[in-house]
């Protein structure tokens, strides 16, 4: 199902989380497109009533019978309107949107365990302690790091990524020095490897087109050329999962796993589909021969450089 959501007067940081939420809705087969509202018809308008343009857009939308969702506010004209907590993580924003757009459908989340916990942390600055039996990891989502007492503990966490029995809570403010006893690695590298390992169990994100807002930290997945290639493509333009798999000749499940990892890390967002899906797949530019030789030395097929 294809849905247009307009946004008006919403601060950038909130819009970012909204767009993450829309990305998650793809797991419920909802293709949601977020657009700055310019008065065109849409299924839902999200406004911030603390903003002048937001208030104006809200009035116009009401006159046109467009449903409005507003961020928490004390504004007097917000009576009776559905609201959304401006501090809500992307995952719960997704749930609110889903309830409004498709009331009564199953919860969107679709992922459990440590991955689900990380998903909730998108856009949050807090440090979360996640436990599973004897395994304990600290997720600093905003910092892009995951900590544990040992590398083998991180591997054990990876193996249980989707287990339902993970528990989590805010990590109490503790002695700074305590971190010196922990090992750490890039959260993105952790997620990329873990999602790849569990690729068969991840819901398919085949509803929407996605794009990377920034390069994920892939230094820690040193032998993984496929992820590097996917990152380069998704950074350049928006892709739908099936087309990306076809273009790269990778397994759709593998591409899907990379989308999940970067979605949960906060680097990936749903985006308008490319004008023509074939546009990025057109004939690669001829790389200078010297670049081809350098690329070959570093294990990149020339097609990858052009990809």
């Amino acid at each position, binding site marked *: 199902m294809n849905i247009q959501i307009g946004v008006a007067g919403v601060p950038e940081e909130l819009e970012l989380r909204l767009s993450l939420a829309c990305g998650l809705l793809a797991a419920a087969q909802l293709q949601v497109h977020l657009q700055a509202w310019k008065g065109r018809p849409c299924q839902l308008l999200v406004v911030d009533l603390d903003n002048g343009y937001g208030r104006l857009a809200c009035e116009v939308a009401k006159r046109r019978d467009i449903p409005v969702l507003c961020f928490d506010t004390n504004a007097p004209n917000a009576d009776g309107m559905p609201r959304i907590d401006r501090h809500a993580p992307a995952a719960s924003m997704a749930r609110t949107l889903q309830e409004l757009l498709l009331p009564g459908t199953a919860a969107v989340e679709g992922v459990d365990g440590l991955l689900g916990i990380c998903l909730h942390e998108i856009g949050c600055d807090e440090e979360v302690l996640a436990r599973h039996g004897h395994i304990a990891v600290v997720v*600093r989502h*905003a*910092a*892009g*790091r995951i*900590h544990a007492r040992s590398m083998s503990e991180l591997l054990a966490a990876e193996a249980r990524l989707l287990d339902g029995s993970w528990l989590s809570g805010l990590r109490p403010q503790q002695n*700074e020095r305590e*971190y*010196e006893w*922990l*090992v*750490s690695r*890039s959260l993105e590298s952790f997620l990329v490897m873990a999602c790849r390992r569990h690729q068969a169990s991840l819901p398919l994100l085949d509803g929407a087109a996605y794009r990377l807002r*920034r*390069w994920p*930290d*892939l*230094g*820690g*997945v*040193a*032998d993984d*050329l496929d992820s*590097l*290639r996917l*990152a*380069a493509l998704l*950074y350049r333009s928006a892709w739908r999962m099936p087309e990306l798999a076809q273009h790269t000749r990778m397994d759709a499940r593998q591409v899907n796993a990379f989308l999940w990892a970067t979605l949960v890390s906060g680097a990936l967002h749903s985006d308008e589909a490319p004008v023509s899906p074939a546009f990025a797949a057109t004939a690669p530019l001829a*790389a200078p021969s*010297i*670049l081809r*030789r*350098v*690329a*070959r*030395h*570093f*294990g*990149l097929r020339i097609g*990858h*450089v052009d*990809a």
Partner: protein
Amino acid sequence: MLTPEPDYAIKLLFVGPVGAGKTTAIRAIADTPPISTDVPWTDANGGSKQTTTVAFDYSTIRLDQEETLHVYGLPGQHHLDFMAPIVGRGALGAVLLLDASSAVMHTDCVHSIKELQRSSPGLKFVIGVTKADLAPRFSMQTLHQLLQQMNLAVPIFSIDSRDRAQVMQLVRALLLLL
């Protein structure tokens, strides 16, 4: 020893502050251990000219029968100015290394990028943050914000420059930008 390279020689630069892991990274990926060369450097700033020496690294990677990639490690910030005319021509791109355990990582980052942009405008680069293992409170977010403020979108990887595979991965990211 360092031989003057013809202009078309293809070069890969490692730049960044002292201790960021440039020599280590070059050692990890080059064919031979890097040679550190002291170059006399005249600081023309201010009235009295001061002559010091600047150490920089040089090594090679043999690509095939005919072609060799020349790898340079350029220290500090201002030294780039001096080195750029020599090694900057024909440079494929640069790897900027930053030390996560350094209290001045962010200033180093801004300065290094500004120098890079000034001495080699348009040169593509990637950022590798080393020693995150020694900096438990390291955060990627602050670096991302810094680059966003500078209107730059370059890959930033946290790597251990002692690990060949991780350095290779960073160079691959650079190649994918070209």
